[in-house]
């Protein structure tokens, strides 16, 4: 009861910087709207009962599961931002004798409240755009009103976003120390075991070999199965190798850095390669999916020499689904990057003020921040696309990999994604400006 009353008091007397509230609100709003749209599409697919319905239903489940990873990451970032917003008050509460548990519960309640508020606005957004989404054609017809979820499902989605935010807030707080002297990030010495590399190489080689030996697959069914297994195995090891790879590349970049921005960016990735990976892993998976699906669609089209009307529609629909998932994934990564960066600025506000004091130009600080996100993003998106291409190469040869459809999907996906994330990073500049304009009294 005390926790709830305190949470209510905190919420009423908020004087936080606008960006620190708006960013997670917008992020949760976008996430909910995307989830509802994808879930609406899934509902439409699950309403079908013919022999092709199964393919669409599996694809809908894959799309939803791809969106869950960035959603959980976003929840954790929002929680960290929430803790930072309340830095002074939480520290004062600890000084007054509040237990770490009470303070953590307060933060989780606040984050969840913010998530629910964002989710409700996301419902409004999804309803507003639903007429446009309804125009998207699947199986030759616009989805229409079949994507509209009933109120029960909408309520369940909003509640689900709230629960996910609460869980990831609680998990995210493990990386933060709520002490009477303030909120600060826990120092963790990141260590990556070389076994990750061995396992990855093993799975990767197995995937390539599997692709090589099924070149003479007797039918589309077997081919699709091999593709699915190769896809699943490769995407699983992406998460294993991602942080390790980012660490290895950032180490090299740190050694070779000639400018302050490059050095700071590389060191900040090295500070927590797992966090850097979490931030961009959604894009890695999506890039992988984009290449795999793009090539897969082209391949399936090529195998069926003269595909009938139905097959052509399925292939076109897979392309549409991939595109929607890619866009949704990038939007979420952009939101996550924005929220993470805002939290990072507040995490290190005193350090940023001290850098300003010693004469570091704000443009240099912003460049270092952007680089710390865009560099891993570039590495992971291109790296995962190349991984997918390599796995597929024995099966498809060069012709399909460089087919116009594949290239357009991959290039468009990477460019749009980079621009989105860059825009999200730019949106956090006012947070840094405010921190520098209003430093803490001790500075």
């Amino acid at each position, binding site marked *: 009861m005390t926790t709830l009353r305190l949470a209510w008091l905190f919420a009423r007397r908020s004087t936080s910087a606008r960006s620190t509230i708006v960013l997670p609100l917008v992020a949760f709003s976008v996430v909910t709207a995307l989830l509802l749209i994808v879930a609406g599409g899934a509902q439409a697919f699950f309403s079908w009962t013919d022999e092709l319905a199964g393919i669409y239903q599996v694809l809908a489940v894959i799309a939803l599961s791809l969106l869950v990873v960035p959603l959980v990451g976003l929840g954790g970032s929002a929680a960290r931002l929430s803790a930072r917003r309340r830095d002074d008050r939480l520290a004062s509460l600890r000084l007054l004798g509040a237990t770490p548990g009470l303070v953590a519960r307060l933060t989780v309640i606040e984050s969840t409240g913010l998530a629910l508020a964002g989710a409700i606005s996301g419902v409004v957004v999804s309803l507003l755009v639903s007429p446009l989404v309804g125009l998207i054609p699947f199986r030759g017809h616009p989805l229409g009103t079949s994507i509209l979820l009933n109120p029960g499902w909408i309520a369940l989605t909003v509640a689900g976003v709230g629960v996910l935010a609460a869980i990831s807030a609680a998990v995210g707080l493990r990386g933060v120390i709520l002490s009477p002297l303030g909120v600060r990030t826990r*120092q963790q010495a990141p260590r990556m075991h070389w076994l990750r590399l061995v396992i990855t190489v093993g799975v990767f080689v197995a995937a390539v070999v599997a692709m090589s030996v099924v070149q003479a697959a007797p039918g589309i069914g077997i081919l699709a199965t091999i593709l699915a297994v190769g896809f699943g195995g490769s995407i699983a090891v992406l998460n294993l190798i991602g942080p390790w790879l980012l660490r290895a590349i950032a180490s090299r970049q740190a050694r070779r*850095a*000639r*400018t*302050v921005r490059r*050095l*700071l960016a590389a*060191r*900040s990735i*090295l*500070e927590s390669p797992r966090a850097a990976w979490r931030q961009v892993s959604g894009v890695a998976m999506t890039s992988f999916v984009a290449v795999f699906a793009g090539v897969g669609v082209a391949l399936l089209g090529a195998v069926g020499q003269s595909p009938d009307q139905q097959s052509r529609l399925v292939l076109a629909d897979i392309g549409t689904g991939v595109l929607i998932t890619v866009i949704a994934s990038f939007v979420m990564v952009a939101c996550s990057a924005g929220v993470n960066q805002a939290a990072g600025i507040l995490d290190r506000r*005193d*350090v940023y*003020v*001290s*850098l*300003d*004091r*010693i*004469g*570091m*130009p704000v443009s*240099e600080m912003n460049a270092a921040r952007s680089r710390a996100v865009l560099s891993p993003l570039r590495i992971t998106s291109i790296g995962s696309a190349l991984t997918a291409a390599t796995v597929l190469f024995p099966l498809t040869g060069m012709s399909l990999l460089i087919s116009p459809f594949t290239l357009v999907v991959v290039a468009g996906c990477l460019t749009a994604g980079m621009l989105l994330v860059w825009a999200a990073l730019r949106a956090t500049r006012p947070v840094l400006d405010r921190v520098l304009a209003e430093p803490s009294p*001790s*500075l």
Partner: protein
Amino acid sequence: MRLAADAIAQPLEQGGGMTSTPLTAPPGNAALTASRLTKSYGASVALAGVDFRVDPGESVAIMGASGSGKTTLLHCLAGIVAPDSGSVVLRSGQDALEVTSLDEAGRSRLRREAFGFVFQQGLLLPELTAVENVALPLMLTGTDRRPAEQTAAMWLAALGLTGFEERRIGQLSGGQAQRVAIARAQVTGAAVVFADEPTGALDSQTSTEVMDALIRSTTDRGRSLVVVTHDESVASRCSRVLRLADGRIVGDRVSDDRILDGTSR
């Protein structure tokens, strides 16, 4: 850990980390003069016409109760905030630079090239190593990384931190981290070093060591030191103690030691 005075002198002889990049302010020893400084925050008067001067090789402690205006004075002197009126001039020989006439970018460059800062918590970048932290201001002035880190390593050695170059800040004690901060403040050959409660987070023994390091590396080399502090023992290490109340100077005392040995102004 005791510091060797001749070790401190080494970086100075090698240029104190100064680069060939043209400086906004004249390098080397310089006097900082403030005249009739005023600054208000809304209805609250932080400075009400303060006159101040610090000469080369001089150390000045600024003391006063919370809200007396001491941090605002330090910020105005260092070009961090612009006063409402009055002037701050950095003078070296015949060259003079009016700090208060510079725009934000100019003041930022001045802080980068002519001033050094030591904060209460050190405020070093935790993800960088000690030597990278110290080299940072030099790299910001355009010095290549390798020579910047060489100069930084010399400063760390001069401050008794040989062997700690590759350690991250979290792996250093409070006193060691504060000495890294002192090295960072000096690496560009700053004419004036500003320190805001530099020993506020340290125990008394470490505090003494850090003040030793700060004074030896500044005033012993003819540089100026301005320290904001609540601690009388820290203030007593400075050659002058300035007391502020309600934005005005209410006391300006040359330290007893300096009077006795005839070195007071």
